[in-house]
């Protein structure tokens, strides 16, 4: 995070170990509100959350979202604070990849 003069305010992510819950194998999408920063890491199949001032909130593995080996390159907060995640995964046992969109709610309680 940088300020309007380009100075670093803070950094997010575990720089020592990408495989830790707060680490990033790769940042494929990032979005934020004035309270929450959400990061989609498709390589490690997880969403990672931070407060707007950089405090680690938690990690949600893709399988906890009901997904199975998905690709998750698109993430966006709506103005009402609802998070949308889009990506794709294979239909079981086939090469057919189907796109999905998930609506994720409950961020208003985060402080």
């Amino acid at each position: 995070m940088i300020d309007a003069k380009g100075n670093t305010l803070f950094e997010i992510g575990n720089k020592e170990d990408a495989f830790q819950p707060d680490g990033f194998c790769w940042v494929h999408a990032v979005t934020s509100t004035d309270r929450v920063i959400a990061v989609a890491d498709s390589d490690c199949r997880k969403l990672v959350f931070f407060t707007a001032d950089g405090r680690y909130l938690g990690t949600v593995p893709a399988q906890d979202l009901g997904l199975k080996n998905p690709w998750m390159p698109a993430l966006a907060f709506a103005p009402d604070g609802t998070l949308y995640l889009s990506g794709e995964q294979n239909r079981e046992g086939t090469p057919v990849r189907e796109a999905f969109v998930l609506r994720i709610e409950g961020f208003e309680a985060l402080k």
Partner: protein
Amino acid sequence: MKSILLTILLAFGTLITAWSNDDVIPRAEAIAASTPLALKATTTKLGEHEIKVTPLTLSYPIFTNKGFKSVTGMSIAGNKLYLMIGMGKAIAYHLPTPATTTLKLDTDFGTNGELKVDEMNAKGISANAQGDVFAHGGWSTIRYHGNTKTEVPGQGALHWRPGKNYGFLVGNNKLTLYANGQLQEKSITANGAGQIGSAG
């Protein structure tokens, strides 16, 4: 030597043009023979907090064959959800109300809900409530508004700030303000934070 180079170029060109819709998009019979994802609504924990996950039904489903991306970018503006999909196309859906779960295709967007963007490599999309849609690849951004399109000057990806009347062109390790339909002189360059990149 020239003939060898020509042969290589022709072979490369053939390889590129071989990626047609028929290769990227599964045949109807393959889709029909496969089992839909049937994702289920669930709740899960984010730290101590509970979050609710609801899969939405796409009235206009998107399929690709293995090896090709179905979705590469998403943006939400107003009551619309925009997706950048394969083969240089963008689509728009109406956002469902909290009580409903279907994303209905916005048939007023582009041609019957599908906008063909000029750049085949466009992967990202950003939109605003004024109806501007910015499609960006690695180095350039094109702005679409109704039937008009204009190239955003400068190199980088244009990201509109949700709910605001401005955005930033992200590229060359700096953020440049974009407002009133054009790049402004104000920009921010990172001081020692590493490269400013663009994700999503």
